[in-house]
């Protein structure tokens, strides 16, 4: 039987079965099937737990009729014993049911969280192109909880449906007339109350969405607190927050009004049911068709029946929310990877002898050398770095939301959902087009697009401008693969001139680095990620502006150490800093060229000069102006 925390391998292990993402309903059904025996066991125990409650009114009636009224002590003892037995069995199954319900909830919750993790890892840099990370995270943090709740209510409602059937049989056997009344009136009561649930659900959704807006506002205020306290604007933002807070309050009161209406109508309807029962029951007793005990049983059922009804309300509400959550989840999990991962025959040649060439710009990095690339437009060198590492271009504008805004309703929401689905499909098609033909970057003559992506990642490491520092010990931050010796780690640390990070932590290598390197200065973060990249010691290392946040003293030290550390390996650095350029084996200048295809306005950047920093500085005017311009930024 499944238990938490289980291990989920879908999207990580190709052999592991994937969830069914053909539709939101299919995903919910898959979640149920995925629980397997656990679901059935929980259902069984829930039924055992419900039965005493369903049987209690009946036994009470029998006891009154057969033992209490006729003063039959032997029968009384018999009935009491049976009643006690059933009651104790039911009561002691309570904690087993609770245990299984918690398991169900957490298997669904933790499972979905792991699916999101696996999918995020599987998609890698493509994920940030496609979906806003906030939405991806909300699938893991809030939608997964909805699924847990859905599992619990499904079992509870199903067990109560069974209880309902048991009661139905009992009342039909006792009195067909009243039985029919109970059986028909109870569902009728549900149907009558159903129309209220939809507006209630809509208002609750609005309240949730406004509350989450509030949370983001507060987070935003905290994130920008230095500015608000430093430059001003506290009043303005406090007022903005107060306005949003009041509108969340209004939404909450509006949802509360509908909830009060649903509860009030629930009381009224179950009261009507009870009244009908007692009216008809007393008449039946009077006519001699029903005993007093049976009548008492019916009254008990009249009260008991409200319980399955309430669970049914809950099932409808939570089911609707789970479907909304499943929409978002499916939109995330269904995203395809833009390239195939089939192993190919082609292998990358040994890098020590292989040139890295970009066909579009004509850029070439010679094996084992330190090459630096200068361009007046830093976006171009960043794009070149992406191409060298076979990364799809970063386009945040391409992102598609996973679900429509919570304030959209009905048809508008459906239209928006369809539009999002279509945009996702278009985006995926564009990406496939980018990756299906040759990539346009070769290592030793082999196009990077012809080998599996993992083989490229193994050989070529591209560090973009914003690498993430993960929380953990400093040792893990520098050596995430746990393969380095102390000496190697120190060498990398010193090459990146990041000794101060080690020095600042009283626990040294075992000191904790906070998530995303919070608590380190911008410069420390940058040097730590540089040290991490150097320590990995890839065949080809591409660095984008590796010292942009580092002070001149330190930059000079890094520049002096970088070449020695990378000796014999291919290194490409995108930079315009003279301190670094000075140490390059070879410097390449990228500049715009008139488009070879007249009529297309896209400027093509190509390599226009190659040489040492000193050569280019003295002989190439464009180069000189690009490098010196960065020097004059703050004049």
């Amino acid at each position, binding site marked *: 039987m499944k238990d938490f925390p289980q291990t989920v391998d879908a999207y990580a292990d190709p052999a592991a079965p994937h969830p069914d993402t053909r539709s939101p309903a299919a995903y919910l059904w898959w979640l149920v099937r995925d629980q397997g025996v656990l679901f059935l066991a929980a259902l069984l125990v829930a039924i055992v737990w419900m039965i005493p409650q369903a049987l209690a009114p009946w036994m009470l009636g029998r006891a009154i009729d057969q033992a*209490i009224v006729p003063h039959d002590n032997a029968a009384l003892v018999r009935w009491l014993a049976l009643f006690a037995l059933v009651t104790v069995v039911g009561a002691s199954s309570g904690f087993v049911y609770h245990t299984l319900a918690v398991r169900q909830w957490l298997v669904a919750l933790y499972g979905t969280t792991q699916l999101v993790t696996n999918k995020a890892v599987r998609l890698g840099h493509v994920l940030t192109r496609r979906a806003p990370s906030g939405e991806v995270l909300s699938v893991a943090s809030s939608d997964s909880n909805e699924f847990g709740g859905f599992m619990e209510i499904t079992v509870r409602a199903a067990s109560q449906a069974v209880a309902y059937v048991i009661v139905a049989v009992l009342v039909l056997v006792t009195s067909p007339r009243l039985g029919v009344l109970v059986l028909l009136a109870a569902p009728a009561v549900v149907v009558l109350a159903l129309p209220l649930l939809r507006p209630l659900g809509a208002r609750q959704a609005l309240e949730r969405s406004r509350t989450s807006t509030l949370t983001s506002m507060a987070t935003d205020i905290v994130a920008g607190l230095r500015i608000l306290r430093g430059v001003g604007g506290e009043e303005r933002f406090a007022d903005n927050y107060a306005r949003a807070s009041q509108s969340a309050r209004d939404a909450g009161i509006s949802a509360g009004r509908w909830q009060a209406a649903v509860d009030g109508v629930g009381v009224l309807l179950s009261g009507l049911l009870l009244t009908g029962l007692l009216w008809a029951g007393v008449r039946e007793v009077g006519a001699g068709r029903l005993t007093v005990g049976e009548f008492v049983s019916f009254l008990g059922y009249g009260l008991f029946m409200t319980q399955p009804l309430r669970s049914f309300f809950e099932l409808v509400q939570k089911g609707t929310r789970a479907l909304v959550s499943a929409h978002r989840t499916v939109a995330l999990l269904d995203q395809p990877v833009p390239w195939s991962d089939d192993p190919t025959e082609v292998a990358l040649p040994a890098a020590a002898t292989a040139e890295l060439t970009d066909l579009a710009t004509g850029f070439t990095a010679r094996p084992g050398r330190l090459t630096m690339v200068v361009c007046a437009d830093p976006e171009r060198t960043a794009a070149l770095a992406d191409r060298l590492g076979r990364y799809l271009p970063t386009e945040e504008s391409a992102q598609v939301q996973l679900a429509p805004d919570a304030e959209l309703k009905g048809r508008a929401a459906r239209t928006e959902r369809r539009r999002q689905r279509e945009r996702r499909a278009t985006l995926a098609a564009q990406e496939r087009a980018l990756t299906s033909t040759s990539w346009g970057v070769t290592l030793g003559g082999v196009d990077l697009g012809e080998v599996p992506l993992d083989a490229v990642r193994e050989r070529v490491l591209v560090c973009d401008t914003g690498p993430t520092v993960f929380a953990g010990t400093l040792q893990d931050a520098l050596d995430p693969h746990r393969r380095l010796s102390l000496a190697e780690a120190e060498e990398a640390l010193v090459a990146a001139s990041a000794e101060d990070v080690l020095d600042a932590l009283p626990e040294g290598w075992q000191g904790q680095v906070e998530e995303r390197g919070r608590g380190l200065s911008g410069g420390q973060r940058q040097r730590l990620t540089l040290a991490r990249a150097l320590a990995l*010691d890839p065949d080809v290392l591409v660095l984008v502006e590796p010292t*942009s946040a580092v002070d001149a003293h330190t930059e000079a030290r890094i520049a002096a150490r970088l070449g020695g550390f990378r000796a014999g390996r291919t290194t490409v650095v995108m930079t315009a800093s003279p301190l670094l350029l000075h140490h390059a084996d070879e410097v390449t200048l990228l500049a715009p060229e008139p488009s070879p295809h007249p009529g297309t306005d896209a400027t093509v950047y190509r390599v226009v000069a190659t040489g040492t920093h000193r050569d280019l500085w003295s002989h190439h005017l464009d180069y000189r102006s690009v490098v010196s311009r960065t020097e004059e930024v703050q004049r």
Partner: protein
Amino acid sequence: MSVRSDARPSGRGSDLLRDDLAHHSASTWDPTRHGAHERAVPPELVPPPRTVGLVRRLRALRTRHLLRRRRAEHFVAGAMSPDRGLPIATARQVVTFLGELLGRRRGLLVAVLLLNAGAALASLFVPRLLGDLVDRTASLLALGRGSEAGDTATRAALVVLAVVALQAALTFGAKLASAVLGQGVLAEARESVVRAILRLPLSRVEQAASGDLVTRVTRDAGTMSDGVRWALPEAIIASVMVLLTVVAMVLNSPLLALPTLVLMGAATLQVLRYLRRAPAAYLLEGDTYSRINTSLTETVEGARTVEALRLGQRRRDAGRRDIAVSGQAERYGMTLRNLLFIVMDLAFSLPRVLTLALGAIGYERGWVGLGQITAAMLYIEAVWGPFDMLVHTIDRLQVALASTTRLLGVAIVPADREVGSDRPADPAIAGRDLRFAYRAEHDVLHGVSLDLTPGERLAVVGPSGSGKSTLGRLLAGINGPRTGSVTVGGVEITTLPLDVLRTEVSLVTQEHHVFVGSVRDNVGLARDGSTDAEVEQALRSVDAWSWVESLPAGLDTTLGAGHQSVSPGRAQQIALARLVLADPHTLVLDEATSLIDPRTAQHLEGSMNALLTGRTVVAIAHRLHTAHDADRIAVVIDGRVAELGSHDELVALDGEYARLWEAWTS
């Protein structure tokens, strides 16, 4: 990627570090972690195999439960210890605070209580009516007048119908009033917390870690919100219900109420034990979920880094470890609840049997009637639902209380400065004999004195950790010095009220946060009551006006995450426009080159120039050209000004600066 071939045995250092650091490094490096997988939970928390006997397994479960309890209590002690980060309010302060909030809504509170009591009374009336009906029907039957039952039924039905209608109306009113009360209290509470955050002292805000504060405004605010919105009203309803049902039971028949009272009393002991333990369990659970969230956030936002460094398996393992830890917290809570449920379920269901037995005996002796038995049985069913609800709302309220102590803690941070009445006579800033320490006994500045000439451009250069940023913060009035003084126009800078200080000097860091809000709010925040024309002027002067004009709603366009996206370059322009609007005569630029992202450098040259023109500028420089262009350069090394003078003077001095300059230009 291959490990370097010249690998030395791990554990031996590289001889590259200075002696004390090399020792620090070698003594903290853990060579045993090679290929090791971290254990998420200690082995004592792994249950024994199912093959061992039940008694041993139960004993092992008890051991695990106690260990989990220690872990939960340890966590709470840590989270509630005031020496870490921001302070935590006392429970008494929270109660006072809530008391004030409720006190302002006394009428509503009374309405909530009365309406709930009314609804409860109405609902308690129904079982009595039904009991009477049973009695009457039975006696009619006994007298052989069963044919009259129809009239009795109609009369009784009408009465019950009226009571039910009243109960429905009162329920509606009670729930609505509770919602209005809960939402009102919640809104006021969260608004006052945000205002408290916006009053935090400058020096406190500038301390790096904002994580604690983020947790407080997200998770703690959420827990408080659940508590106030849901638990508080339901707790009121449930306690009214329990109290009145018990009274109704005793009124119906003290004898038949006996089993319920005794067992409820016995269960209360276990309930109290549970309530003492439960908050720690819930707080720990909440914390483990935010850990799962935090590390998943890293995985998702750093998806590219994960891919580039091939950390996929590591990140999946990390996620699985977080979940394993969370599972342990959940298991603690689950066992606590199971221990509660075993007792509660028995205490809930046994009264049915016992009451029926007592009822039978009582009926035999003529002490009670059938109607009383019926009503008693119906009351038993009616009392436990609210009792159960009461237990659950109280544990939620306890959790909410704990969160609220953390939220209100923000409000009790003491102010870091006393405002005086003197105002600066002129814009000259002077620092005298400045010393400062973040940790006691560890001065990072050792008696620095520095006069700024109005209108000059002073560059501060020096290696990382030399104290140049600290010097900047003292000059900008963020922190007060330990000894010595910083004055502007002859007035101690930390005695100026903030709105005056901001017009004197601003600290500009590498941060360029764009708030979710309109362009107007984003820029106009720098000066209260600024007009659209002033905001436009500020944006024009940093060359950002044409961009704003091109936005769909101009100044009203909402910027930030989830709305109009803002490129880093635009974000920097917004940051600069704020400063133009704030218009301080002195700017302290810390890591200003980081503010100017190299990717956008060329677009920003003009914007930056517009800001700096006509102001005194202290530039803590990363780039030497900044120093080259400055009027004076201060070289700060080890907390002292080692060299001070113009570029030419310092090059002629042939010291630290001259050496660096040579490296830059050679």
